[in-house]
């Protein structure tokens, strides 16, 4: 691709990037950062390409390491962002009602709640 086309793409992407996050509320700063973090895990595509072209074993080993790291970034990033956002979900009202009930039965030790609710 020629340099001017690349430059066009970059400049437009910069403006889109500025524009889409300019009005975010502080509540969502952490999930937004985490989501953007997941998106750059797409370097996985690059890692797959170099691993698919590697001939010498040690080059292949380095490339496969890059694939593992990029996968951790990409998959882990989206999963952890989803977990954060799950807490903001629409089941709020039902969960709030549930918490009022459980507060009456205060013998339940606090802190055991979140992990119990965590099923794949």
């Amino acid at each position: 691709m020629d340099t001017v086309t690349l430059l066009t793409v970059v400049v437009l992407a910069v403006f889109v990037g500025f524009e889409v996050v300019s009005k975010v509320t502080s509540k969502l700063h952490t999930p937004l950062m985490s989501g953007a973090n997941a998106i750059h895990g797409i370097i996985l595509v690059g890692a797959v390409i170099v691993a698919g072209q590697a001939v010498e074993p040690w080059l292949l080993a380095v490339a496969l390491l890059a694939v593992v790291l990029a996968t951790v970034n990409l998959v882990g990033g989206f999963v952890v962002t989803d977990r954060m956002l799950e807490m903001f979900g629409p089941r709020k009202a039902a969960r709030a009602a549930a918490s009022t009930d459980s507060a009456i039965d205060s013998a339940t030790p606090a802190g055991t709640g979140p992990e119990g609710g965590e099923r794949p």
Partner: protein
Amino acid sequence: MSILAPGWTALLYLVAAVCFILALKGLSSPRTARRGNAIGAAGAVVAVLTVFLSARLDNVPLILAAITVGTALAVPVARRVQMTQMPQLVALFNGVGGGAAALVAVLELGHGGDSWVRLAIAFTMLVGAVSFAGSAVTVGKLQELISTRPLLFPGMPAVMLLVLAGALTAGGVVVLTGSPGWAGGLLVLGLAAGLLLVLPVGGADVPIVISLLNAFTGLAVAASGIVLGNVLLLVAGTLVGASGTILTKVMASAMGRGVAGIMFGAFRGGSTAGSTTLSDRPVRSASAEDVAVQLGYAQRVVIVPGYGLAVAQGQHTVAELATALTARGVDVVFAIHPVAGRMPGHMNVLLAEANVPYELLRELDEVNPEFASTDVALVVGANDVVNPAAKSSPGSPIYGMPILEVVQAQQVVFLKRSMRPGFAGIENDLLHDPRTTLLFGDAKDSLSKVLGAVKIL
């Protein structure tokens, strides 16, 4: 195996890029955030499938195995991590992404290309290495494996300049000759620069640095797109670079700081204003029962949760206390400072996890005018975000940061572990105010005791 024609590949990459834009857009609003994230993940799936179907790839079984290993490592950690430790995990994911970009660039060095490509390779290696090492330091600081205070040694600015000059030289040689030896040197210098950049940053500012390094990784990925001639990497990386830069600025201004001040402030010599002569002044400490009486017979209570609450895992207990007080007819709300917790928005996540109804959470601008009509402000494990020094003492390191004005409430109760100052390391005058009561102890223990006492009032 090349199943897709180049035109289709380009089209599918465009679909993925649009998904990423929609993801960022969706993540900017509470209603659409979760869907936005799912759209982003879908885009990533499209992109990865496309690369397998379009490029001529060897070693496919090994690559698939590596992807499986990466998924098996990431998913359990991402699902099980405590919400309090989530900032570390985000930093970790960011660091490995930067590392992956640097490795991709290293491997592409052997494939020739003109000097523009080698410039992009050198840039990716340097920025990816900075992001990797810098993120490692932020993880260490957040996990308190290394000191959260700014770490400086004599001559650090000079060493930093030498490392940068060395990195630029090595980068220049790589661009001109493509020498693998110099490329190795560039990686090492990039790692050193990452360490030197983040070590001097104080604990409270670490989240801003994570966001900045996130933008760095985005730029490294964008440059790797130029290296590989891949438009998707270019667009996705640039998007993250641009949005990450804006997000970093927005976060920094929510703390009343400039990004440059955060990165290099420690070199100018920290201000210690506010830490003189205050420590031996008396404070009024109380028992859990006293606090329960104060709260139980109040009309209106504002709870200010801070990081101390999160580390003590007290968010569930504080939610129960709020419920018990509400049951007694007390009007209870939570005041959330934008940087309460360890990251902007972190406290909202923690309280949502503890089932605190969304309607009870008040943001800074909403709640500040209400403090004057508040009987008791209950500050749990927070300090800097309510420190009046941010408004009244221009020499203070937190001067200019917007604070929750609990000082205007009729009475203030602090649940604190000790008299130790907060993350920013400055004294809080409010602790010595005659209207202030302190209950010392671990936030969760104190809350449990107060909760028990409220119930038998």
